[in-house]
C-alpha cells in the first residue's frame, strides 16, 4: 500500500470544468470518502485516479510514482465498480484470477492466491459459479476479492454499496471497513450516501460543483462545517439565512429573531444560522421554564412526526421553520400531550449554534 496524492487536478470537457482544482491526500492505510451531490465531480476524480479519465491539469501521485500519464492498466489500483463489472462469461475463480493472469503469475500461485482472496470474502465454496448465479451481495464480494487479490497500491471504490438493499448495505459496509483496516488498504471511495461515508471513512471530502468544500474527519465535518453547504449536506441541519442584529441576536430573512449568545467572531456580510435538530430541546410553554444556561424562543408546533425511538418536532417561528429531534417521550411525559398548533419553547445551548459565512 502507498500514499495517494492529488494536486491541483482539473478536468475540463470543452469549456465546462467538472473538476476544478482538487487537492487531497489519502495517507497509507487510510480510507477517504469523496462525498457530494451527483454531478459534483467526485466520480470524475476517482476515474482520474484510476486512469480512465485524463486530467486537464494537475498531478496524481501514488507511492513515490507520478502516475498522471501512466496508462490505467499499469497503475496498480484495484477498483470496485458500482455495477460490480464482473466478467459474465468467466466463473468466480476466473474472475478473481484475471488480474493475476495479466501479471503473468503462474498457475499454481494463482490458484493459491485466488483461494486466499475468496476465503477472505467468505466465498470459497462458490468458486465455480458464474456471476449471474450469485446474489448481488455475493457479486459485490467477488468484485472486492478480484480487486484485492492483485495487492493494489490503492483501492478505489465507486459507490460500492449502492446496488445492495438497505439491510445488506449496513452489514457489508461494516465488513468492508473491517477488511480495509485489517489489511491496511489505502482507499479512496466515492459515495453520495452520507451515512455510508460517516460510518466507513477516516476522513471525508465534501465536494460541490467540482470543488472541494471541506476535508475532515466525520466529527469535524458534522460539528464544525465551514459553510452552509457542508452543514446541510452532512446530517440534517436547521439552516436560516440572515444577518446579525446587534450583539447576540440573529435576524433571519423571514424576520425571526434568534438569540445566539454572547460575543462571537463572525464574518461580515450574509450569514447562515446553523443548528443541529438534536441540539434543540422542546419544552411546553405552559410547563417548566427552560434551564437558565439555555437560550430559548417561543414557537408554534406545525407537525409532530413519530419515528419510533425518535420524534421530530416541526415548529414555526415568525415564518422561519425549525426542526427539533429528541428521544420519543415516555407515556407519562408532559411532551406526550403536545399537538400541532401548540405554543412551545425551543431551547438550545450557545455552543450548539454556528454562524456560517454565506447563504
Amino acid at each position, binding site marked *: 500500500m502507498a500514499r495517494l496524492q492529488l494536486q491541483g487536478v482539473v478536468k475540463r470537457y470543452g469549456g465546462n470544468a467538472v473538476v476544478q482544482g482538487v487537492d487531497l491526500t489519502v495517507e497509507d492505510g487510510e480510507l477517504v470518502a469523496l462525498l457530494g451531490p451527483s454531478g459534483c465531480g467526485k466520480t470524475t476524480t476517482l476515474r482520474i485516479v*484510476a*486512469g*480512465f479519465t485524463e486530467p486537464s491539469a494537475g498531478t496524481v501521485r501514488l507511492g513515490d510514482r507520478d502516475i498522471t500519464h501512466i496508462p*490505467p*492498466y*499499469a*497503475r496498480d*489500483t*484495484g*477498483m470496485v*465498480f*458500482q*455495477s460490480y*463489472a*464482473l*466478467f*459474465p*462469461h468467466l466463473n468466480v475463480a476466473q474472475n478473481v484470477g*484475471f*488480474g493475476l493472469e*495479466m*501479471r503473468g503469475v503462474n498457475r499454481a500461485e494463482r490458484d493459491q492466491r485466488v483461494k486466499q482472496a475468496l476465503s477472505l470474502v467468505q466465498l470459497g465454496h462458490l468458486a465455480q459459479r458464474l456471476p449471474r448465479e450469485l446474489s448481488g451481495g455475493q457479486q459485490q464480494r467477488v*468484485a472486492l476479492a*478480484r*480487486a484485492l487479490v*492483485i495487492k493494489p497500491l490503492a483501492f478505489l471504490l465507486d459507490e460500492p454499496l449502492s446496488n445492495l438493499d438497505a439491510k445488506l448495505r449496513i452489514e457489508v459496509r461494516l465488513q468492508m471497513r473491517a477488511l480495509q483496516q485489517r489489511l491496511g488498504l489505502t482507499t479512496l471511495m466515492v459515495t453520495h450516501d452520507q451515512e455510508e461515508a460517516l460510518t466507513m471513512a477516516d476522513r471525508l471530502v465534501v465536494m460541490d460543483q467540482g470543488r472541494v468544500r471541506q476535508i475532515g474527519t466525520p466529527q469535524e465535518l458534522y460539528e464544525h462545517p465551514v459553510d452552509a453547504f457542508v452543514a446541510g449536506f452532512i446530517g440534517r441541519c436547521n439552516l436560516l439565512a440572515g444577518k446579525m442584529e446587534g450583539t447576540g441576536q440573529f435576524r433571519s430573512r423571514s424576520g425571526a429573531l434568534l438569540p445566539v449568545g454572547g460575543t462571537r467572531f463572525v464574518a461580515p456580510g450574509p450569514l447562515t444560522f446553523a443548528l443541529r435538530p438534536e441540539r434543540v430541546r422542546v419544552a411546553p410553554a405552559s410547563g417548566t421554564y427552560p434551564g437558565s444556561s439555555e437560550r430559548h424562543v417561543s414557537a408554534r408546533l406545525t407537525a409532530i412526526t413519530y419515528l419510533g425511538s425518535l420524534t421530530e418536532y416541526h415548529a414555526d417561528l415568525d415564518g422561519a421553520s425549525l426542526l427539533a429531534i429528541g428521544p420519543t417521550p415516555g407515556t407519562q411525559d408532559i411532551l406526550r400531550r403536545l399537538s400541532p398548533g401548540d405554543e412551545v419553547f425551543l431551547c438550545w445551548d450557545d455552543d450548539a449554534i454556528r454562524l456560517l459565512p454565506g447563504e
Partner: protein
Amino acid sequence: MILLKAIGRLTLLLPAKLSGLAMPLWISVVYTLMLAPVVILAVISVFDQQIVSFPPEGWTWRWYLNAWDHPEFATGLLISLQVAVLSTLIGVPLGTAAALALVRSKLLGKSFFNYLLLGPLVVPGVVAGAALYLAYVRWENLLDMDITATLGGLVAGHTLLAMPWTVRLVVASLEGMDRSAEEAAVNLGARPWTVFRRVTLPMMRSGVIAAMLFAFIQSFENLDLSLLLVGPGSSTLPVAMLSYLEFRIDPTLAAVATVQVVVIGVLMVVTDRFVKLSRIV
C-alpha cells in the same frame, strides 16, 4: 426459436379482448400460415406423379433419386455451402469491425456509414447483381484477370449480404453491453487488445454467432444477386433450381428444396445449442 419470436410479434396484433378459445385458435391460424409452405413442400416431394394434383396417386422417394442423378444439384449444393461459409467468414468479421467503429469510435458521419452499411438490404438483389456484374467486367479489363463467373466474385457479392445483418446484430449487442466490465479488465492490467479478446469479444459472442447464422442463411438461399455472377457449370443451388424449372416441372424441385430447408433447420438447431436464438433475434 426465430419462428416463435415472429409469431409472438404477430400475436401482438391481436384485438385486446380475445378470450377463451379465440387465442389458441388465432395461434394455430398463424402457425398454419407460417408452416404450411414448408410442410406442403415436403409432402409434394414424395408425391408419386409428374404433375402435382390432389389426392396423390401414391408415395415415392424417386424425386430425391432423380435430383441426385442431376449433378447440377449436388455441385450446386456444394458451391452454395462453399460460398455461404466463405462469405460468412469474411463478412461477419468485417461487419463486426464496422459495428465496433459505429458504436465505439468518435468517427465523424457515423449515421452516414450506418445507412451505407444497411444499403445491401435496400437495393434489390437483381439490381445489385447487375451492378456488380458491370463493375466486375470493367475491373477484369483493367486488371486483366477473371472476376465474373469466379468463386471469388460470387463470394465478394455474398459478403455484401452479410454486412447489414452483422452490423445490426453486433451493434445491438454492443449497445446493451456494460462497459465497466472492460474498464475492470483494464484496471486489472489488461492491455487494449487483451481486453478485446478476453472480455469484449466473449461478451458480444451471441450477437456475432447470430450474425453468422443470418449471413449463412442469406447467402445459402440467395437467388437474385447470384443470377448474373455464377459461371457455367458452377451454379449455386438456387440458380440450379431456377434453370431446372425453365425446362421441367415435377416434384424434383420440391425434393431439392426440402433438402435446403433441412440444411438450414439443422444449422439453426445447432446454433441454438450454443446461443439461445430466442434471446437475441
